[in-house]
């Protein structure tokens, strides 16, 4: 019988993707690490979303470790973006969502963002008549540490704080390769650049978990290459846990530590990128595999996909 090893792929422990100077600057951005890593960063159990009579998600379980990059893949309508929207509480859902040990599925959207979850969107919601820098700073409201009274009675504090936030934003623009565009209006950017600005905006508050909704959609090959480098650098630097939704299998294969395949609102299977993307079940269900795949898939027993809390650091071998 085939043995499927459910292991997370470990990050490349070779040369760091960023130089020491950028690493130090990123320290200033991700300046609020969690005190403990004893619990998973994100735990989703029995997540269900219904829109009237339509069940968009059904009993979905997903785990994201503190420095994991988990990719949710699946065809259109599988419930990928719905999963992210449910985590952010932009839509109603049932089930339990725990972030760093704290239950968040009953919190308002702004509280979830304030708790340390940054989100980018499939269609970047940039403000076209603001500059790139100003758009990135739109993500920093929760880090505002001055009020009206400071502005009246203590302007130097306000200026220091504003300068610090501008430095954070510039660090992130430098990180995503857009530092030279900081003063340009966001409306003049290409779609790929807008995506990167949106990702920088999601990071400016120094989140502990990044939710990236189809970060590679609409990007050309060069832009996808840049995005790949950014994701790998974040993974290598262990700054933040990342949960992405993506359609580009090459990008998923080369960046993810763990993949969850959704189909029709349910988890089809989960595991390492190779385990999921190379499996016959996945190919038949998602992309329509070859006749050999269909034959192999037909021979596989019909059992539920493994749950994600089985994929610990040591991995677990499951016999089929």
């Amino acid at each position, binding site marked *: 019988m085939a043995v499927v090893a459910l292991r997370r792929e470990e990050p490349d422990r070779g040369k760091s993707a960023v130089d020491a100077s950028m690493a130090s600057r990123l320290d200033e951005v991700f300046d609020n690490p969690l005190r403990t890593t004893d619990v998973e960063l994100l735990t989703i159990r029995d997540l269900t979303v219904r829109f009237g009579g339509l069940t968009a998600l059904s009993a979905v379980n997903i785990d994201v470790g503190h420095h994991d990059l988990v990719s949710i893949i699946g065809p259109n309508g599988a419930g990928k973006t719905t999963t992210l929207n449910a985590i952010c509480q932009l839509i109603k859902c049932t089930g339990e969502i725990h972030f760093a040990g704290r239950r968040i599925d009953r919190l308002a959207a*702004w509280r979830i963002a304030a708790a340390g979850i940054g989100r980018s969107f499939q269609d970047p919601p940039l403000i076209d008549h603001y500059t790139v820098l100003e758009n990135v700073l739109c993500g920093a409201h929760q880090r505002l540490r001055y009020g009206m009274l400071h502005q009246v009675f203590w302007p130097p504090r306000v200026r220091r704080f504003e300068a610090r936030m501008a430095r954070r934003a510039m660090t992130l623009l430098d990180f995503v390769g857009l530092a030279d565009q900081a003063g340009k209006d966001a409306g003049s950017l290409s779609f790929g650049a807008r995506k990167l600005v949106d990702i920088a905006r999601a990071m400016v508050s120094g989140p502990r978990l990044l939710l990236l909704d189809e970060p590679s959609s609409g990007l050309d090959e060069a832009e996808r290459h840049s995005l790949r480098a950014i994701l790998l650098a974040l993974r290598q630097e262990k700054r933040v846990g990342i949960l992405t939704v993506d359609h580009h299998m090459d990008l998923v294969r080369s960046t993810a530590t763990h993949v969850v395949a959704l189909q029709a609102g349910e988890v089809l299977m989960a595991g390492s990128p190779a385990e999921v993307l190379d499996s016959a079940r996945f190919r038949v269900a998602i992309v329509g595999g070859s006749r050999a795949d269909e034959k192999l898939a037909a021979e596989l027993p019909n059992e539920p996909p493994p749950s994600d809390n089985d994929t610990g650091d040591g991995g677990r071998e499951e016999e089929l």
Partner: protein
Amino acid sequence: MDRLVVSLFGGGNLGGTYALVALGIVLAFRATGTFNFAHGQFMLLPAFVVGAWQAGSGGPLWIPVVEGLIMVSALGVVFYLLVLQRTVGLLHFMGVIATFGLAAVLDGAFLIQYGSPQYSIDVPGLPKGVVTLLGAHLSAQELTLTAFTLVLAGLVAGALRFTPVGIKIRAAGQDAILASQGGINVRLVYVGSWALAAALAGVAGIVYGTSNLVNHSMVDVALAAFPAILIGGLDSIEGAVVGGLLVGIAQGFIATYLGPQYLDVLTYGLLLVVMLVFPQGILGTRTVTRV
């Protein structure tokens, strides 16, 4: 020269009132995307409270002013929470219809509570008498109130531009989802926006009532501010102040040089001309379509 000065300062007086009214309407619009057609009634409520107080028992003016502003702010908040929040996701005109409904309800309530009064508001301590400026005789009280409304409108616009609270209000009005992802409590901001919008209308109503009769026709002042909003830019807070001032001064000149019968036609004519050159208003956001 004296006609010029009278037009300028008389128009400035009206412009200050329009600026406050327009600011309130733009604030509410940015919060919920709804033109508040009950804004005139929001002006009228505190003016009635103050007018009735002074006509009745009398006493310190601050009591009915505070009471009136609290009442109208609470009304704005309750209307947002109970009605407008539920129109989110529905067709835009549903919210507009709701404000028409509120206006009708308030008109009826005012009739029941106050009848058809003709109050006037007297603010003690305001300078009386006449000021002569470049040959023109101007009311000292009106000059003071003009300065007050313009300074207040400027302070509110400045606060919305530069303070953290104002930035959050503008952010939530720009893009609610983006604002929530930035950690802004959007619901609280919208509640605050409606409270502030109603309070600004109330202040405008009280100030207007010091130089004009407080009666049911005051609601027409809010309707007259709509050209100011469109000229300034529907989504622009600074535009509301600029548009209000512009329309007020324009009306001052029209009334002085041409006569009051030309007010409406030339005001809306001005609106059409501005729309031809600046379809989004002088300070409104230009819509860019990416192709």
